[in-house]
């Protein structure tokens, strides 16, 4: 029997499920950080904090134009440059222009998902510029020519021996699979790159409009290096990553580091608000802040999805999602994976294109429970599915599967008319006979239905329905209830 060709999503998911290494890492990651974050929220003294921060995130979105203008003004006062980029291409062009003017040959990058979203690396490389990731995990991924599979633990799918082989090959060191030695080797190699780079390219975790700073969190210190040593610093910022005041910053950044890795604060939180002054020996004589829209204003405009812009990208939802916990990050085929990726990727990059993501999650609600800012991802996943089912002009979405609509219309007809339903059941009981195995389970079904039994056995349809059994055993008929009439309802 020929099978429908599987989607990339299914194939990648299957690959992950077949890898015991990845399954073990995902399991321990979720065990530690997922459960840890839930415990942290439960123990937190200030139980109102998450709600408060969410409220301030939503409020700030309402005044986004004012906040962005204020941020830009304050950065410019310090002598920094601010560029507003409506599209990815716009941001790339601007960065390339800065690179060209400064004769940049080597760029060191602090981890930034936005840089992946706008695909700036290939553009820089095409211009003959060497691009070096400096976060250890991202660096390993880059050396391997692979893609990250977790927001904060990018190379969770690789084991130490694979990394050891990779380093032996690419860095010319003797093979070792000892994490401290491997880290030391990367430290040395990257220090050279960091000290000789012409430009640092980072993201922005959270900007503060009132003081005109961007802030960046890291544990490794690579972000501090990338923002301190090279003579030019370009920071890419998603337009929603902003708070109004320092006080909002304090609470938000704490939720970010707690959600991400159960830390009260990450090892480093750096605030940058412009180029360094003339008598400062450290680098960054030029500071460019690129504020990027790239589809965000469209999300902002839709009340159904605006909430997703309150996300602070902590990655906590990945650490609890039962789907992510099995299929890993690669299947999402996006810089943003896990539950947040399943909502934000279709919105930024096309709902039809990423239909698998909307349909892949289980709507169990765990992501909403763990989210430091209580974003209702399940609600938005359901809304995305609704768009797929009926199509949407606003989101330029066509009906994903018209056949599905016919099937459900038919189903509605059947279940609403009991004689038809009963007859159908009888036929189905007959049809299933050849498939019922000795253990009284259905091991394999035919045609499109085969997907249901690929990974499990199904119980057959029972000989009698519940209703029939009830009728037999407790046959006293119920007293007839008065039937509500239309007039009653309207009264």
């Amino acid at each position, binding site marked *: 029997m020929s099978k429908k060709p599987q989607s990339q999503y299914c194939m990648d998911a299957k690959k992950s499920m077949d890898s015991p290494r990845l399954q073990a890492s995902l399991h*321990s990651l979720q065990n*530690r950080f997922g459960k840890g974050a839930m415990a942290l929220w439960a123990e937190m003294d200030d139980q109102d904090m998450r709600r408060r921060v969410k409220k301030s995130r939503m409020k700030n979105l*309402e*005044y*986004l*134009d*004012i*906040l*962005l*203008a*204020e941020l830009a003004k304050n950065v410019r006062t310090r002598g920094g440059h601010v*560029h507003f980029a*409506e599209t990815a291409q*716009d941001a790339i062009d601007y960065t390339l222009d800065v690179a060209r003017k400064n004769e940049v040959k080597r760029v060191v990058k602090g981890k930034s998902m936005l840089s992946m979203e706008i695909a700036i690396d290939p553009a820089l490389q095409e211009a003959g510029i060497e691009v070096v990731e*400096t*976060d*250890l*995990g991202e660096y*390993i991924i880059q050396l391997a020519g692979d893609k990250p599979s977790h927001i904060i*633990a*990018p*190379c969770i799918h690789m084991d*130490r021996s694979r990394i050891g082989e990779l380093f032996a090959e690419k860095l010319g060191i003797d093979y070792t699979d000892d*994490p*401290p030695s491997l*880290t030391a080797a990367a*430290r040395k190699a990257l220090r050279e790159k*960091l000290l000789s780079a012409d430009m640092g390219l980072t993201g922005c975790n959270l900007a503060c409009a*009132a003081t005109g*700073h961007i802030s960046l969190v890291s*544990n*490794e*210190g*690579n972000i*501090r*290096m990338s923002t*301190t040593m090279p003579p030019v610093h370009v920071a890419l910022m998603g337009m929603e990553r902003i708070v109004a005041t*320092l*006080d909002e*910053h*304090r609470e938000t950044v*704490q939720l970010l580091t707690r959600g991400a890795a159960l830390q*009260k*604060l990450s*090892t*480093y939180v*750096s*605030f940058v*608000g*412009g180029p*360094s*002054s003339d*008598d*400062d*020996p*450290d680098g960054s004589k030029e500071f460019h802040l690129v504020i990027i*829209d790239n589809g965000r204003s*469209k999300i*902002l*405009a839709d009340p159904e999805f605006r909430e997703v812009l309150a996300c602070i990208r902590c990655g906590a939802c990945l650490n609890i999602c039962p789907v992510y916990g099995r299929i890993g990050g690669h299947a999402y085929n996006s810089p943003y994976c896990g539950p947040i990726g399943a909502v934000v990727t279709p919105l930024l990059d096309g709902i039809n294109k990423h239909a698998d993501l909307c349909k892949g999650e289980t709507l169990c609600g765990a992501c909403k429970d763990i989210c430091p800012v209580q974003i209702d991802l399940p609600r938005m996943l359901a809304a995305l599915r609704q768009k797929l089912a009926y199509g949407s002009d606003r989101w330029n979405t066509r009906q994903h599967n018209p056949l599905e609509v016919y099937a459900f219309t038919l189903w509605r007809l059947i279940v609403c008319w009991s004689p038809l339903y009963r007859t159908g059941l009888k036929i189905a009981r007959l049809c299933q006979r050849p498939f019922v195995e000795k253990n009284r389970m259905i091991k394999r079904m035919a045609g499109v239905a085969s997907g249901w039994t690929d990974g499990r056995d199904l119980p057959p349809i029972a000989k009698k329905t519940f209703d029939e059994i009830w009728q037999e055993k407790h046959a006293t008929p119920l007293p007839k209830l008065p039937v509500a009439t239309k007039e009653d309802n309207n009264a």
Partner: protein
Amino acid sequence: MHKQTTFLANVRTALGEAPQVERSKSTFPRLFAAPDTTETLKKICGRTVTELNELVTIFLHNGNMLNISSHIAESLHEAADVVVELIRTKEPEFNYVKHVIMHDHPDIAALELWNRFNREAVTLHTTFSRDRQITDKTIASFIGITAPTIGVADSATVIQLTEPGRPRSTSLLPSLHIALLRRENIVADLAEAYALLRQKSYLDSLVFISGPSKTADIEAHMVYGAHGPRELHLIVLAEPVTER
């Protein structure tokens, strides 16, 4: 500027506002309103030595969990002893000579480290603003000494402001970072620290440091010394006070 105008007009359209009418922050005074911190500031200034010592205990306890090595010194001389011991016993990571780089700060100058090394080959540098070779000296140094402005007990954080003569790289490039913190500069939590920061009329760049640089990217195995210092030594300067 043109880009900014159309960009923000788009945002306003998305928000259902008139795209061409710029909204001014003065119309929404509550947007940037900050809570009153007078009480917090009063509390910080009014702490007794006993209370401060409690904060020190909390700081050291939390710091311990973050792998911060801490020392309490009752005098600048004692603090200098700790520093000298570290310089003597630790080995350079990236070269073979012992260079030490220090912020231009009165407390660090008062350690009089220059007076301590008569026989060993130890070179001491200070990050004076006019020195054009500071970057090279910092790269060559295996220990960097700073005197952070604020310490936060709850998260075991030191806050380092960038100021003339106090560049960022001193706490970043050397393999070891020594932070000399006066007891009276320790506050209880981030809320207090932010209240102090808000008082500054001008904030250049700054960094919160809570421990040595670390990574767990390889099989979730914790390793200290990813890109920044692999050790953070905190010296709390707690000079005995008779009266306060």
